[in-house]
């Protein structure tokens, strides 16, 4: 145990935790929105994220950009990759909804069944990239780790005086990007007409449908929004880690789901709080002990918090997102 290491660089570790947690939080949004409206854990959401990273790779490959391109090219390629990732992830999420959930909803199946089809979809998506595409298209698909060119190269932007904290451009993009996207989503859900529909269905589906809210459309909307957020997370992830692989979704998904529950599943701001808290807790634990205990710490934090706040830190409610 090395508490000195933690406290001597607390600012640095907190920043590391926030960076890690930002991506968790963005993915957690997808879990939380779907849960808020359908009271359903979308187990395939981790793969929605995974598909986004491949879309980024696809755009970079198609454009032929690589590290060291000019600023305009970098910005253009990154934005294009962002768009592609959001579209790919949202499309995947929507497909999952159509194939795996809608038929069950029509049959009025209980939540446990949705869980299994979700897991099934997750396996299918993983195998599509790990096996099916490999057979049909060959490399880069398959069960190997694939490098994504660092189009956006990490550069030191400035140093926070007094704290000796170096801020890089990627860090700024990840943290600011995540927070901006969350605020935008939060505003959308709270202010827009479509968002009101989402909240209405989340609060009381029956009344909402009496008031003329089309539940099916709201469900489609939350899958699209959640998927798009996962797409944003996918781009930020590739900027930070430079890789993708057919099975990267699993662990991120697990963490994001934990983060969503931690903050109060169904609560948008809860996803942010949960994600950041989880990221920070993991980095602290990895610093005090080592990364092999990070996951245990994450789950212990979850259990302890749920014991004192059985519905998560901010409580669950997409309907009352202002909590």
């Amino acid at each position, binding site marked *: 145990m090395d508490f000195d290491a933690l406290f001597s660089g607390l600012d640095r570790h907190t920043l590391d935790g926030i960076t890690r947690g930002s991506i968790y939080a963005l993915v957690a949004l997808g879990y939380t929105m779907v849960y808020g409206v359908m009271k359903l854990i979308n187990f395939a959401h981790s793969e929605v994220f995974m598909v986004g990273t491949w879309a980024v790779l696809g755009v970079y490959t198609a454009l032929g950009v690589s590290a060291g391109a000019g600023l305009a090219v970098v910005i253009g390629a990154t934005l294009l990759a962002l768009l592609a990732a959001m579209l790919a992830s949202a499309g995947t999420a929507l497909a999952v909804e159509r194939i795996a959930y809608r038929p069950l909803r029509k049959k009025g199946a209980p939540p446990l069944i949705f869980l299994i089809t979700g897991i099934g979809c997750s396996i299918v998506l993983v195998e599509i990239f790990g096996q099916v595409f490999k057979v049909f298209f060959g490399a880069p698909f398959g069960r190997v780790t694939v490098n*994504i060119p660092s189009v956006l190269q990490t550069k030191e932007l400035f140093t926070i005086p007094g704290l000796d904290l170096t801020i890089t451009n990627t860090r700024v993009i990840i943290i600011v990007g995540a927070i901006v996207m969350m605020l935008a989503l939060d505003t959308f859900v709270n202010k827009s007409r479509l968002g009101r529909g989402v909240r209405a269905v989340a609060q009381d589906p029956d009344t909402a449908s009496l008031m003329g809210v089309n539940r099916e459309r709201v469900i489609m909307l939350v899958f699209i929004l959640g998927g798009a957020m996962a797409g944003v997370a996918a781009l930020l992830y590739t900027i*930070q*880690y430079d*890789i993708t*692989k057919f099975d*990267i979704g699993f662990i991120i998904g697990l963490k994001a789901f934990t983060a969503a529950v931690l903050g109060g599943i169904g609560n948008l701001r809860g996803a942010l709080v949960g994600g950041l808290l989880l990221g920070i807790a993991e980095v602290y634990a990895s610093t005090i002990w*080592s990364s092999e205990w990070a996951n245990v710490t994450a789950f212990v934090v979850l259990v302890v918090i749920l014991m004192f706040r059985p519905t998560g830190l901010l409580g669950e409610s997409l309907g009352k997102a202002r909590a």
Partner: protein
Amino acid sequence: MIRSSKTWQAVALTAVAGLALSACGTTDTDGGGGDASADECNFKIGVMGALSGANASIVLPSVDGAELALTQWENDECEVTLEKFDTEGDPAKATPVATQIAGDETFIGVIGGAFSGETRATKSIYNDAGVTMISQSATATDLTQEDPVEVFHRVVPYDDYQGAAIAKYLTDELGASQVFVVDNSEAYGEPLADRVEETLGDAMVQRDKTEVGQTDFAPTISKMESAEPDAVFYGGYIAEAAPLLKQMRDAGIDAPFIGGDGLYGADFGNAVGDAGEGAVVMCPCAPIEGDSTFAADYEAEFGAAPGAYAAEGYDVMSVFLAALDDGARTREDVEAFVDGYSGEGLSKTIAFDENGDVPQDAVSYWAYKNEGGTLVPEVEVAP
């Protein structure tokens, strides 16, 4: 009784059908192999390992290598087939496979297990049945040193040697005196890192453990920043090495990066990208050179350059085939032949000591440097 006449009809029909068909004969549950009588030479050799799943890329080249050896083998007397058994690297899936091979007398030898876990889980099965195993890639020390069985052999040195060789490379070749050692907490990476740590002694500055599946290494990076190492060793696999390298270089840590044979594979360069330029992979696998046509033959046969342990797979198969050439016709014969075997292999001089290990002096360690996405042999290191 009328009520259930339909049931009885069904039962009766089934019974009649069953009897009729059983009269026709029973299935050959020995897997379709012929009788292994003394004058007939018709045998099978099993290869067992992760042929599918995330780790298949470390195993498949060795299977191809074995296949190549079989194709190139010339023997009019004997018929040998190579049967491939997929275990996904999972010990639980490996035991039924091992029991199957053990129970089928036409199997005279097994190539594998490819990984240490499945080998640990199956070696007593093979031992009970007297099936000779020669592993192309299982390197855990305990397999031969702590808990040896009669039938287990391997053509790769175990982690202790490898750890020592890596430490030697770090100190002697790189002149490192402050090595930062990272492992992946798994059965492969951790013991190897332990050995490296042990051999390095004071030359190790700090040790950190990470997880398989981890992509964010920020805590490890900040530990590195304060430790200021002059070299970093990582015991683990490619999937984690790639983001670790990228984050190291992003953080401005330019110390040389050295990995164990878990990183050795054709996909290493593609996974690490630019950040991995100059990274070194240590492997107890000699580069194939000289007058051997192995690399060319392999490429002609399988359409790719020989990957990890391809030469070892070839060597293992060659040992078994040599046993048949020598007139071995039973499992006992094969075991006796293999125990006494000595010969030049592609990867090294193959022979086995009483524990089933290749003699230390026959082993060569090579450092491969990642240059432009391919692993180029840099230097041989004697442990």
